[in-house]
């Protein structure tokens, strides 16, 4: 009796296991196949890339070298690294003290300040782009450079401030009080006590900011489009397709080269990423 019962239960468990995992494999195909086709096409010859074939006849690894040596590609690469790297550094340095004050100081207008940060976070960049463009291009004559993209990042980024604040809220006040009792000023408390504990939050913000700049299309389109020497990968990639009109293999190879750093970085910093995404939505 009891063995028949467990037998039925375990066979149901097996069925459940099989069902869930076949669904999982089906979903995995949906997420993976685009990458597979992308890679396969990037390795086809020029002629074959225009056919309905799915599998390369010959493996043209040289496509990647061709893309790499396309005029401009290295410049775009360098610009993107500069925009994403310097921008991330500036964002973190300017956002940490703001997030700290919003999470841990008691002051009048704190709620209002937080509401404004969230409002800024939700603001589509197109809303303020006309005056910003006129400011950078007409008054400062800096269009065609990366400065209009990088400089604003030195003044705190709303999303980073919000994310960091959510993270800092999880640090118990007792640690801060202990530091203050020991005679630390706020700056020392922030640098010596809070920063080491906030490392995962800072890592998450830095990664998001890096990818945000890496992926940005609108900013470079507005400020850098009239000077190819200031293009970034995201913006250059689209014009790359224009210049290599029929060459899907080369376009896909370029696409792989633009995606690759993001994916490599993800494998080094999976935890920080997932933690950051979770913080935005779940812990309030």
């Amino acid at each position: 009796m009891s063995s028949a019962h467990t037998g039925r239960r375990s066979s149901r468990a097996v069925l459940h296991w099989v069902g869930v995992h076949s669904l999982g494999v089906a979903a995995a195909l949906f997420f993976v196949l685009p990458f597979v086709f992308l890679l396969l096409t990037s390795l086809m010859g020029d002629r074959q890339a225009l056919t309905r074939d799915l599998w390369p006849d010959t493996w043209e690894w040289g496509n990647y070298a061709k893309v790499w040596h396309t005029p401009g590609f290295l410049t775009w690469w360098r610009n993107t690294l500069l925009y994403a790297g310097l921008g991330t550094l500036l964002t973190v340095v300017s956002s940490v003290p703001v997030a700290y004050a919003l999470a841990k100081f008691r002051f009048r207008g704190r709620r209002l300040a937080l509401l404004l940060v969230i409002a800024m976070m939700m603001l589509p960049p197109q809303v303020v782009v006309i005056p910003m463009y006129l400011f950078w291009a007409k008054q400062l004559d800096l269009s065609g450079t990366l400065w209009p993209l990088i400089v604003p990042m030195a003044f705190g980024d709303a999303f980073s401030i919000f994310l960091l604040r959510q993270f800092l809220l999880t640090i118990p006040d007792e640690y801060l009080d202990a530091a203050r009792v020991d005679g630390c000023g706020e700056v020392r408390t922030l640098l010596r006590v809070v920063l080491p504990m906030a490392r995962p939050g800072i890592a998450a913000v830095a990664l998001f900011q890096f990818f945000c700049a890496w992926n940005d299309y609108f900013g470079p389109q507005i400020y850098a489009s009239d000077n190819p020497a200031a293009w970034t990968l995201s913006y250059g990639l689209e014009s790359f397709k224009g210049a290599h009109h029929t060459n899907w293999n080369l376009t896909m190879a370029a696409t792989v080269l633009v995606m690759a750093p993001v994916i490599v970085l993800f494998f080094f910093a999976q935890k920080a990423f997932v933690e950051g995404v979770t913080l935005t939505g779940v812990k309030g």
Partner: protein
Amino acid sequence: MTGAHPLRSKRRRSALRTAAFLSPWLIGFAVFFLYPLLSTVYFSFTRYDGFRQPAFNGLDNWSYVFTDYPLFWPAMRNTLWLVLVMVTCRVAFGLGIGLLITKIKTGTGVFRTLFYLPYLAPPVAATLAFVFLLNPGTGPVNTLLDAVGLPTPGWFTDADWSKPALTALALWGVGDLMVIFMAALLDVPKEQYEAAELDGAGAWARFRHITLPNISPIIMFAVVTGVIQAMQYYAQPLVAGKVAAGVIGGSGQQFEPGYPDKSTLTLPQLVYNLGFQRFDYGTACVVALVLFALSMAFTALLMRRRGGLIGAGE
């Protein structure tokens, strides 16, 4: 003298300290938010091409946008379509994948990584890839559909299919929602499920009466942030339209936006079209303010005390 008001001077010191910590953002807020926002309002009432001085023209730009500008209502309709259909699909699919990943017991890490990775793909790169994959003649997707005898749509080259194609692209990048839903689902108290199971509740009843109520704040969060993302939807529809139309990218290219037949046109593209291709900054600012009003309305939803972003503790 200074000793007479120790409390006041202490208070002033702490206000100064707060201001010092907030200063990067205070400057950023004034220079990159408040000033341009007020300028946008001002320009919206002027005729302005960026060269001659702005000339006040009252509500002319506003009435032009709402009654005569041929691209405004198509863009508005597309944006609403994306808000309704794309956001619904993304939330439902994200929840489905989130549920699935909590049930998977073998190789969870591998599955989670596979589901998450496309979210990280740069939008322009992902869009280029999808235009190629869904290429009606030679794209792998239609090749596969044809092989199993299914109809092969024109995707990005067919006005009826271009938005569903964009939706497929958005579903591919659902990894962020998967992570959020997964975290919320794992937080649902196990005892509630055990109690329901003892009462003989089936899988659907458990989902309906335990899972859904427990995660409804997160669903709300996903819907509202999804709506705001849909309002800002820019690079994907623009690049998809341009590449599918065969427009050569690069500087100063004039093109009819929204290929095919305005079906991939969104509100943010109009700001670019009016401001940076037609140099009609005044009218561009009107569209920018429409966008502002819509996103702030949805943001207000997010900031409610219950189920909002700020949380009950504030």
